[in-house]
C-alpha cells in the first residue's frame, strides 16, 4: 500500500497539480499553482490531430501485431515441437537490446540507400520514393516494437489450452477451420485481450517511433508533443502535463469500453 502511494499516487497528484499551473505574466518558464483549466482546453483544441494520429497508429499497429502475432503464437504452441525453445528465444531476444537502438537500426535498414528502399524504388513500387518519414514507417516501427507483447500472452493462453478439447472438435466431425473458430480461438481470447491491451496502450503513448521514423508534421503523435512541450517550449510544462492527463483519460476510456465489450471472466 505504501509502495503504491509512493510510486503511483504521489507522482500522479504532482503531475495533476502541474497540469493546472499558470505562467507568471512576464516570466516565461516560471509557474505558480493555479486551477487553469485552459491548459486542458488547449491540449484538446491545439493538438486534436496528434491525438487522432496516436489512436489511429496505435490501432493499426495493434491490428497488424495481431495478424502477425497470432499465427506465430499458434505455431509456437502447437506446431513447433522441439523448435519451440528457439522460437521463444527469437521472440524475446530483441528485449536484450535497447528499444531505441533497435528503432535506430530500422532507420538504417529503411534508409533511401538501404536495400529495401532501393529495391522497391527500382521496380517503381515506392510512391514518394522513400520509406522513412512516412506514416507507414511509424506504424511498422510500432508493430515491430510491440509484437512480443502480443505474441507472449496469446502463446501462454494457447499453451494452457487442453489439446484433448481441440481433438474432440475433430472427433465431432468439425473441419480444421471450424474447430479453430469454435474451440481454439475462444480458448485463446483472454490472451488476445491481454495482448491487444499490452500493445495498444504503450503504442498510443509512444513517441520514439514517430520521432525516429516519422516526419516532422504529418506523423507526430501525442508523445512527441508532450516531449517537446516539456523540453523545447519555454512555459510548456503545464501544457505537457495536461496533455499527459488527457491521453491517459482517453486510453483509460477506450480500454474500459473495450474490456466491457470483449472482456472475459478470467481477466476481470
Amino acid at each position: 500500500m505504501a509502495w503504491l502511494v509512493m510510486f503511483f499516487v504521489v507522482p500522479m497528484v504532482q503531475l495533476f497539480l502541474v497540469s493546472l499551473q499558470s505562467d507568471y505574466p512576464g516570466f516565461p518558464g516560471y509557474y505558480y499553482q493555479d486551477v487553469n483549466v485552459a491548459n486542458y482546453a488547449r491540449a484538446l483544441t491545439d493538438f486534436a490531430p496528434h491525438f487522432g494520429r496516436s489512436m489511429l497508429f496505435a490501432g493499426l499497429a495493434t491490428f497488424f501485431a495481431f495478424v502477425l502475432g497470432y499465427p506465430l503464437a499458434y505455431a509456437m504452441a502447437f506446431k513447433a515441437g522441439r523448435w519451440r525453445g528457439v522460437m521463444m528465444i527469437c521472440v524475446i531476444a530483441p528485449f536484450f537490446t535497447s528499444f531505441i537502438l533497435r528503432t535506430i537500426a530500422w532507420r538504417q535498414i529503411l534508409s533511401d540507400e538501404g536495400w529495401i528502399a532501393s529495391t522497391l524504388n527500382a521496380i517503381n513500387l515506392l510512391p514518394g520514393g522513400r520509406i522513412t518519414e512516412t506514416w507507414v514507417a511509424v506504424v511498422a516501427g510500432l508493430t515491430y516494437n510491440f509484437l512480443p507483447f502480443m505474441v507472449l500472452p496469446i502463446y501462454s493462453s494457447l499453451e494452457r489450452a487442453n489439446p484433448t478439447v481441440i481433438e474432440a472438435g475433430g472427433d465431432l466431425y468439425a473441419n480444421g477451420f471450424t474447430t479453430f473458430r469454435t474451440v481454439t480461438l475462444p480458448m485463446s481470447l483472454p490472451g488476445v485481450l491481454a495482448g491487444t491491451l499490452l500493445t495498444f496502450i504503450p503504442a498510443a503513448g509512444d513517441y520514439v517511433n514517430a520521432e525516429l521514423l516519422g516526419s516532422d508534421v504529418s506523423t507526430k503523435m501525442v508523445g512527441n508533443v508532450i516531449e517537446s512541450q516539456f523540453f523545447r517550449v519555454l512555459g510548456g510544462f503545464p501544457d505537457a502535463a495536461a496533455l499527459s492527463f488527457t491521453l491517459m483519460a482517453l486510453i483509460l476510456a477506450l480500454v474500459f469500453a473495450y474490456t466491457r465489450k470483449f472482456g472475459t471472466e478470467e481477466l476481470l
Partner: protein
Amino acid sequence: MQHREPPTDPFVRQLVSMMNSGHSRRSALKLGGAAALAAALSACAPPAPPLATGSAAAPAPVLPVDVSATEKTVNFANWTAYLDYDEDTKKYPTLEAFMKKTGIKVAYTEDVDDNDTYFNKIAPQLRAKQDIKRDIFTFTDWMANRVIREQLAQPLEIFDMPNVASNLLPSLRQVSFDPGRKYSVPWQGGFAGIGYHKKKVGRELKTMDDLWADDLKGKITVLSEFRDTAGLLMQAKGIDLAGNWGKADLETAFAEVSKRIADGNIRRVKGNAYLEDLKSGNATAGVVWSGDLFVLRAETGDDDWEFVIPESGGTIWNDNMLVPITSTHRKNAMQVMDYYYDPAVAAQVAAWVNYVCPVKGAQEELAKTDEELAASPFIFPTDAYLTEKKIQGFRALSAEEEAEYGALWAKVIGN
C-alpha cells in the same frame, strides 16, 4: 521590468477568468468546486513572482562552498563532436594532457544535443538549487543569456585565468548578455549555412532557393534551432538579422518553412542528428553548422561534402562555457577553461573541430603544423571575410519574445 501581479487567490483568479470567457453559471459552479478541491489539495497560495534579475532588488546568489582543493575533479558537459578525439585510444588527447599536468580528473560528457532540451532538463533542478553534478556546461549565446539572467551560473574570476585574460579575442570580450565576461568564457563559435554533397547534388548550391529545387525534394534537412533556419531565410529576404526586425518578418520565414515541409521539400527538422541523415543518404543537402561538415568529411573520408555560406548571408553564433550555480568545483573548472586558452592547446582543438576559435595566437600555432588549415576562414575568419559574406548574429530576444517565438516554431515543426 514591468509586470502585473497575478491575483493571489487561485479560486478568485479562476472565477475572474471564467467570467471573462463567459461560461455558464453551472459549469462555473462545477469548476469552482474542482477549484476549491485543488486549492485544498495544494493548500498554497502562489509564491511571490521571481525577482527580475539585474534590478536592484535581486539579491546576490549564495554560492556553494568550493571544494576544489580537496576534490580534484571537474564534470564537463559539452556538445557532440566538439573536442579533439582519438578514435584509436577512445580518449580526448588535450584533456588527457590536462589531467596529467594538473592531477585534476575531468569527466567529459556529450550531454548537450540542443540548447532547449538540455536547458529545460536541468533548469528545474538548478532553480531549486539541487546539484546537477556538472561543473561546466556549454550554451549558445542566447541561452547563456537566459542562464545568466536567471542567476543559474556562478561568477568567475577572470584574473585567475591568465590565459583567458590575455588571449580572448577582443571582439568577444564585450557581449551584451555578459558585460565584461563575468560569467561566461567562449568555447567555440560557428556559422550556419548550406551543406551538401557535391556529387549527389550534381551542381553547386549557392542560395537558399537552390535548396527547393525539384530534384532535391525530400532530400533536404534543416536545423531545429529557428535562429539558424529561419535566420537564413530572413537574410534571403534581405532582412538585417542583427537589426530591429519585427515579429512579422520572422513569421514570414516560419511560413516558408511550413510550406516547404508541406510541399515535401524539407524532409526533417533536426538538431545535431542531421549528420546521420547525411551519412545514410536520406538527405543530400540542408541547413547545417559549419564545423560538422568538416568532421563529416574526415569521418567518411569523402571530400565531396561541401559547406557554403548562402549568397544572401549566413549566421554566426558562439558557444560559452559556464559554471552551474550548484557546482562545488568552480576553481577546478576555471583551470580547465584557462587551459583551453593556451594557444597551442586551442590550435589542437581547432584542427579537429573546425569551428571558429576564440583564442588569440592559435592561428600562428596551427600554422606551424598545418598552414592550409590555419588559413581557413571557418576557423579564423577575418573581419573582411565576415563583411563580404554578410555574416550576422541573430539579435537578442527579450524573454517574452523568446517564449512566444519558441511556441510558434514548435507549431511549425509539428509539435
